[in-house]
């Protein structure tokens, strides 16, 4: 069973619809006791890093998510949800993140490229990962104005190029993130979600 973390930020609907299409059992909750019962957690999110972290701190979901990740439960952050996994962000002033992965969220450098980075961009694989099983190096759908500067290339699973190298899939141990929206990335994205679900089931067994 997948638990979608509802902390009041952003669009939970598209990711839950994707799980429904895949016939994957899930629930949406903001309660720690309920979420603790999930075999794997999905952390979605759109909007501002600062606001999201404030809510996660106030509701003590931040501590809970850290403890769950440390206990070995698979966790997948999507878009802002991925950025929240890192040490900090410079969006609306410096804000500390969950610190489960090493790196900082920074604004795209000034260039003639449009921000947000919005649309379909190609994945380039950087290392093997269970999330990439049967996934082609194809296009996925991004929408974001900040990107992660990784402290170490070790966490980089796949990247895209948008003036800078944008970490697109990251992960270490049981903690994963996608900067793009797998639920909106046609078959490529659905395969990645399926791989996460398989990984969750593997851990449970």
């Amino acid at each position, binding site marked *: 069973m997948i638990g979608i973390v509802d902390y009041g930020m*952003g*669009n939970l*609907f*598209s990711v839950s*619809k*994707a799980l*429904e*299409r895949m016939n994957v059992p899930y629930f949406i909750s903001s309660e720690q006791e309920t979420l603790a019962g999930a075999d794997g957690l999905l952390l979605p999110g*759109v*909007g*501002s890093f600062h606001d999201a972290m404030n809510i996660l701190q106030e509701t003590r979901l931040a501590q809970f998510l850290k403890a769950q990740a440390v206990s070995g439960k698979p966790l997948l952050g999507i878009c*802002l949800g991925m950025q929240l996994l890192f040490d900090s962000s410079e969006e609306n002033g410096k804000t500390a993140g969950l610190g489960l992965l090493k790196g900082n969220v920074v604004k795209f450098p000034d260039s003639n*490229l*449009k*921000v*947000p*980075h*919005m*649309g*379909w*961009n*190609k994945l380039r694989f950087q290392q093997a990962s269970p999330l990439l099983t049967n996934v082609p190096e194809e*296009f996925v*759908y*991004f*929408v*974001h*104005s900040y990107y992660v500067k990784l402290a170490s290339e070790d966490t980089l699973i796949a990247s895209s*190029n*948008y003036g800078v190298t944008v970490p697109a899939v990251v992960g270490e141990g049981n903690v994963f993130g996608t900067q793009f*929206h797998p*639920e*909106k*990335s*046609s*078959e490529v*994205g*659905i395969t990645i979600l399926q791989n996460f679900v398989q990984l969750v089931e593997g851990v449970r067994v």
Partner: protein
Amino acid sequence: MLTKRIIPCLDVKDGRVVKGIQFVGLRDAGDPVELATFYDREGADELVFLDISASHEGRQTMVDVVRNVAATLAIPFTVGGGINSLEDMKRILRAGADKVSLNTAALLNPEVITEGANYFGSQCIVVAIDAKYDEGLGSWRVFTHGGRNATDWEVTAWAKEAVLRGAGEILLTSMDSDGEKSGFNLALTKAVSSAVSVPVIASGGAGSADHFYDAFEEGKADAALAASIFHYKETSVAEVKSYLKARGVAVR
């Protein structure tokens, strides 16, 4: 490399797709879900649904359409038409749409852009602009109510204002070109795309694949939208994309 997006637009009235759609092989060409799936398979990068229902009942039905499309489609889609308030946005986005498009409401009450952006994030908020060339102004003037009422806004000034207030994308329709099939309005598209930092979708005037090429190369558009040429099968999303690819434009 970020690709240029091709976006078919479907007019929906009381839960059915309208405006003469000629598809062969589809059981029911008026079904939004079936058409959305068709365009998805053809390689559409996104879809726009324009709710042209006149009645409250029609608008309620649109929420069901959004729910059904979201349950089937794994590409982003935007819903526009008759969205006036944060409550309207919540209804549509909670049913599974990825973005809402604001037009007249944004001009009458620009604060609604900010409310939406604060609540859902800028990436959910598209501001649609209908513009027409105005000799006296020496530029394009912005219109409301489906092009019926003139405003005081010059198009690039309004586009900048909309972005400042939180719009994450601009859907720009040239009223001069719309329905003419003689190509997108390149000067207008370029003017707006150069004026704002967010992506601009060119709309109005698509008649053939090379018009899309011009919109991207000369108009500097990030995406291009069309309705009738796709609906009437004058060309297809797949054809447009293979044409663009052959001419060196990055497409999915």
